[in-house]
Every structure is written in structure tokens, then in C-alpha cells.
């Protein structure tokens, strides 16, 4: 009955109570939303390289290697020579290896030279393989497969010609050797979407007439001559490696790191990601703290509302007292009301989150390649919601204790 009365009392003050609940709901939705984006971003990053055991590149920082090889963020300082690549590929532990050759671009998108192994071995989001949406995997030397975002942004169709520019943000184009779009990949939500994929040989082919980073003047080898050449690369940017047995990962990593001919670095993608999280962890914590403060602010707002309602509710408290309610009933009534408000706020907040996710999911995926899963609330989220209700009850103790004192002094006669 007390619970019903508390509910009726809230209903009678629908406007102020509604505003308070809305504030709590928005803060809860924000908090959970930040959580979702945070875990979603982590999962998205981790999903980008599922199935790869080691990333190998020239010696630099492990985070740097991870960023440029997988996420196309930043640049390689040095390359991995083809001899080293071959030697690693021939090691008995290696199940598969695929080269990555970066450095050129098309418009705002990076061009990546690789082998056809890439289409078989590259796995994202819990072991999914790349699939070709339109067209087919490259067949000719001057064929290219483009990511979904490249096709969508530049409005490319299968068969369209593409001219690759030398370097990034450069005005020098490899106009002598235009490519043809042979296939467009399905959207993956990984950096592959924003990549123009060509074969490793094609990267060599467009640089045939280039000497030490510049085009040799007046020289232009015709395409059919190039096709006849053995286009063996001298170096690649990095390589992704899969081992036969997971137990061999550390041995192989050590062997590559101690490779005598060239300073190399092999990293475990998961470990490098952990390092990356440690770097961005502070920003993450700050973001979480700010949204936590918003929840606290909303709860303090509720406390203020309860405080300001106390005077007009003295009559109500006097009635309770006259009917034989102990002052602590008054106290618990206010705490129950606050907990109810917080609980409704938390539930509405959760609903807002899911409504928001439902609409934002495709937009966020399209804009940032970030996949926010719509899952039932996790245990952690349930704790957050429970915590909001408990915090609401605790915060309301302050006005409730005041009401307790007031009703003790007033008794059943209100003297205002």
C-alpha cells in the first residue's frame, strides 16, 4: 500500500517528477551509450584482425606497426626486404603469410598491394571472410578490387578505370598504367572498406620507370612490355602471418625479432592492441568519468526537487503521522519515491539507448566503420542500472532525513 501511495504521489506531481525522470534517463542513456561506443570501438578494432597470429614489419614501435599495417594510420618508417619476407615464409612454423605493400594512394584512399592470399586469409568480425559484392577478384595485372566505402564515395562501378597516385596526397600520378575495377567488396566495417587493393606485382609494375622515389624523365615502358617482365618486389611494408600451431607463435616471434640480417619486429596483434588501449585509456576513463558526472548531476537534481517539495508536502506528512505512521515511515516513503524515480529513469534511459542504437547503428557503421551491437543488457550494464537506483535512494536520504525531523517536530499539526 505504501508503495502504491508513493507511486500515486509521484503521479500527482507528474510534471516535475517527469522532468526529473527525463534528466536521469538521459544521463543513464549517455552513460550506457559511452560504454557501448567504448566496448564497440574496442571490439571493432579487435575484429579487424581476427585470425592473424603475427604482424611483421621493419623495427619500430609495436603500436606504430599495428596502426600502419592494419589500420592504415600513419606511415612505415622502413620496409621489410623481399629476401627476409621469403625467408620467413619458408620457415616451417608458418602456415600462411600475406604481404602488405602500402605507399600509394587513390584520391583519399590508400592503395594496398597484396597477394590473392589476402582474400582467403583476411578475417574480420569473428572469423568472417571477405566477400566480393560485385565483379570478381583481380585476374589481370592491372586489375583492382576496391572496398565498399571507396566505391560508394567515388561512385565506382565494375569496369571503371582508376589512376593511382604516387605517395600520399601527391600530385604525381601513375597515369601511364591505369587500373580497372574488377570487383567491389562487401562492407566489412574495417579499414578494408577504405582501401584500393591491387596485386603486389602491380605495385612493382607502376614503379618500373621510377628510380629512387622519382619518375625517370622521358622513360615510359609500355604496358605489354611490363607484362613480360618478372615483377619481383624488392620490399614490402609488412606481412601478416598465420602459424600452424598457436604454441609456435612465441618461438617464431622471437626468431623474427632476433633476425640477424635486418632489424625486424614481429608483434602479436592482441598484445599490441592492449598497448594501444593503455595509451587511449586515459581519454577513455575521462569520457567515462564525465558521463558518470552527468548521472550524478541528474541525481542531485532529483535531490533538489525532493527538497523543494518538502514544504508543500508537510500537510501530507502530518496526515501520515496522525494516522499513526512513525516518522521513519515518512523517511522510507521519500526514499521509496526517489528509488522509484531513479528506477523509472534507469529503465527509460535503457529504452532510449536501444532506440538510439536502433537508429544510430547503420549511421555510425557507415560514418566510422564502428559496429555497435544491439545485445540484451550485459551484467555490467545491469550493475550500472542497479547502481543508479541505489545511488538515487542514498542521495534522497538527505531530504528524507530533513522530512523525518520536520514531521517529528510538526507531529500531526502543521504550524507554518
Amino acid at each position, binding site marked *: 500500500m505504501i508503495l502504491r*501511495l508513493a507511486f*500515486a504521489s509521484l503521479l500527482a506531481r507528474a510534471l516535475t517528477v517527469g522532468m526529473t525522470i527525463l534528466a536521469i534517463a538521459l544521463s543513464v542513456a549517455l552513460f550506457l551509450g559511452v560504454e557501448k561506443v567504448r566496448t564497440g570501438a574496442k571490439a571493432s578494432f579487435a575484429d579487424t584482425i581476427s585470425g592473424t597470429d603475427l604482424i611483421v614489419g621493419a623495427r619500430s614501435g609495436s603500436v606504430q606497426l599495428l596502426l600502419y599495417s592494419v589500420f592504415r594510420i600513419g606511415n612505415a618508417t622502413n620496409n621489410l626486404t623481399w629476401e627476409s619476407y621469403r625467408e620467413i615464409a619458408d620457415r616451417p612454423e608458418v602456415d600462411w603469410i600475406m604481404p602488405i605493400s602500402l605507399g600509394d594512394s587513390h584520391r583519399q584512399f590508400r592503395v594496398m598491394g597484396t597477394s590473392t592470399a589476402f582474400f582467403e586469409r583476411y578475417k574480420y568480425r569473428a572469423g568472417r571472410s571477405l566477400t566480393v559484392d560485385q565483379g570478381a577478384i583481380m585476374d589481370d595485372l592491372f586489375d583492382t578490387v576496391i572496398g565498399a566505402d571507396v566505391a560508394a564515395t567515388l561512385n565506382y562501378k565494375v569496369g571503371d578505370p582508376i589512376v593511382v597516385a604516387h605517395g600520399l596526397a601527391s600530385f604525381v600520378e601513375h597515369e601511364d598504367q591505369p587500373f580497372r575495377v574488377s570487383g567491389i567488396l562487401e562492407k566489412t566495417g574495417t579499414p578494408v572498406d577504405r582501401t584500393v587493393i591491387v596485386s603486389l606485382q602491380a605495385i612493382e609494375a607502376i614503379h618500373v620507370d621510377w628510380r629512387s622515389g622519382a619518375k625517370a624523365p622521358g622513360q615510359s615502358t609500355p604496358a605489354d612490355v611490363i607484362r613480360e617482365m618478372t615483377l619481383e618486389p624488392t620490399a614490402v611494408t609488412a606481412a601478416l602471418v598465420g602459424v600452424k600451431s598457436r604454441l609456435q607463435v612465441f618461438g617464431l616471434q622471437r626468431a623474427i625479432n632476433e633476425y640477424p640480417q635486418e632489424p625486424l619486429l614481429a608483434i602479436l596483434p592482441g598484445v599490441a592492441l592492449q598497448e594501444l588501449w593503455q595509451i587511449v585509456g586515459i581519454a577513455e576513463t575521462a569520457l567515462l568519468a564525465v558521463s558518470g558526472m552527468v548521472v550524478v548531476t541528474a541525481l542531485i537534481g532529483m535531490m533538489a526537487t525532493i527538497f523543494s517539495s518538502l514544504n508543500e508536502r508537510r500537510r*501530507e506528512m502530518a496526515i501520515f503521522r496522525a494516522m*499513526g*505512521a512513525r516518522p521513519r*515511515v515518512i523517511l522510507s516513503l521519500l526514499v521509496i519515491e526517489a528509488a522509484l524515480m531513479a528506477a523509472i529513469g534507469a529503465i527509460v534511459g535503457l529504452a532510449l539507448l536501444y532506440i538510439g542504437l536502433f537508429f544510430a547503428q547503420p549511421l555510425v557503421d557507415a560514418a566510422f566503420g564502428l559496429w555497435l551491437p544491439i545485445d540484451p543488457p550485459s551484467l555490467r550494464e545491469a550493475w550500472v542500472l542497479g547502481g543508479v537506483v541505489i545511488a538515487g535512494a542514498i542521495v534522497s536520504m538527505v531530504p528524507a532525513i530533513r522530512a523525518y525531523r520536520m514531521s517529528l517536530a510538526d507531529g500531526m*499539526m502543521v504550524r507554518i
Partner: protein
Amino acid sequence: MTPQRLIYETCSEYGIGMAHAELILSLSDVRYRWPGKASFALAIPNFSVASGERVLLLGESGSGKSTLLSLICGTITAQSGSVVVAGIDIASLSAGKRDRFRAEQIGLIFQQFNLLPYASVLDNILLPLRFAPRRNAMLSSPRDIATTLCAELGLPADAISVQAGTLSVGQQQRVAAARALIGAPPLIVADEPTSALDAATQATFLDLLFAQTRAAGSTLLMVSHDARLADRFDRVVQMADIASTA
């Protein structure tokens, strides 16, 4: 254990009202001063009400009526003297027990704003039973009794489920009466229950209140400043005769 206390406990054990006890209320040598207020003090040498009596307590505002009612109901306790309600000296009870005692023994009606406006009429009537388990246990079906009381007090049949705040002042006072009467507490205390009503409504209300108080076997102590009501009561007491303020 005093004989009166024995009677009270036996009676409440078996759920019988205290109608047969001799004195339902007796105050002797009571002195009370509000905390923090040196000037206003109330002294009541002797005042008692017999069981089943209908007593009108007349007094101007500021004569200490409200203080007296608070003393009887046990929301305040006297600095000296004794307030005995239904055979129990209120001062002997702890604060929590006094609240429970009030719920069990006393039905209260105020001048106005008696009800929780947001709650239904039924919830308002049943509210004291929530704090008075013995009074509640006496009733086989509180809901039916509340409905019957409402009907006998002349409230419309569908009034039981409406929000109390939507009723007229006259109707609200009847709901307050039903709430005081439910479970037949031995003492009904009414503080100017008719002063917010017009003359015609006043008369009807008093008729109904008297009838129901008698039916419940309860004692009625009513406080008012309106001497015109006097001839309807068994006994009229002037506040000035029993109490002195300083």
C-alpha cells in the same frame, strides 16, 4: 499492572473496543511547554472523558486546544503529569509505541485537508489500518466495511475508487470520518471538523458522525470554537475551565 491496563490488553487481544472501560481519557496535573518557547505553556489540572460520551470542548484559538489534542494523541508528551488514554499512560510508551497506540486507539478528523489528495478514497480510508494491525485484524474485509461506511455517510456509491482530491470539501470530510471510524477505535477525536462546511452541510455531517460513532461504540471528543453546536453533545467543556495558559 493496573486493572485498566489489564482490561486494555485483554480487550485488544480479543479485538474488543474499550467501550466498557470507565474512563477513556483522563489527564491530571499535566504541564506542557513547547520546546524553545518560554512564554506559551499549558497546564491542565484535571480533565477526563467517560467511555461512550460525546464531549464538546469549546475554546477560542490560542487557548491550547491543538496542544491538548497533540498531548492526547501522543505526538508530544507532557513535561509532568499523566495523560491516560484507554487505560494506558501515554508517557510510559516509547515514541514508536505511541504512534502505534494512536493508530490503534484513536480516529482523527481535522478541520480540512484531511486526505491524501492523490490517493483513492479507499486507500485514504484504509490508511490508519496500515499502522494498526490489531484494528485491521478485527475486520474480515476492510474493503467492504469501507464501502459500507461510505454508503452510511452518504457518499456516492462510486466515490470509493475516485481520487480523494477530486471530491468536494463536504464529501472529503465524510471520507475523513469514515477513515476515523473504520475498525471502531475507542476514541474519535475531531478538531473543528465542521468549520470548513456551510450550515446545512454541518448539520448533516454531525448527524452522520454521531450515528456512526454510536454504532461503532466509540467515544467522541470534538473541539470547536462554535458554541451553537453545544446542545447536541452530552457534555460541553470550556477550555478555559480545564486549562490555564501562561
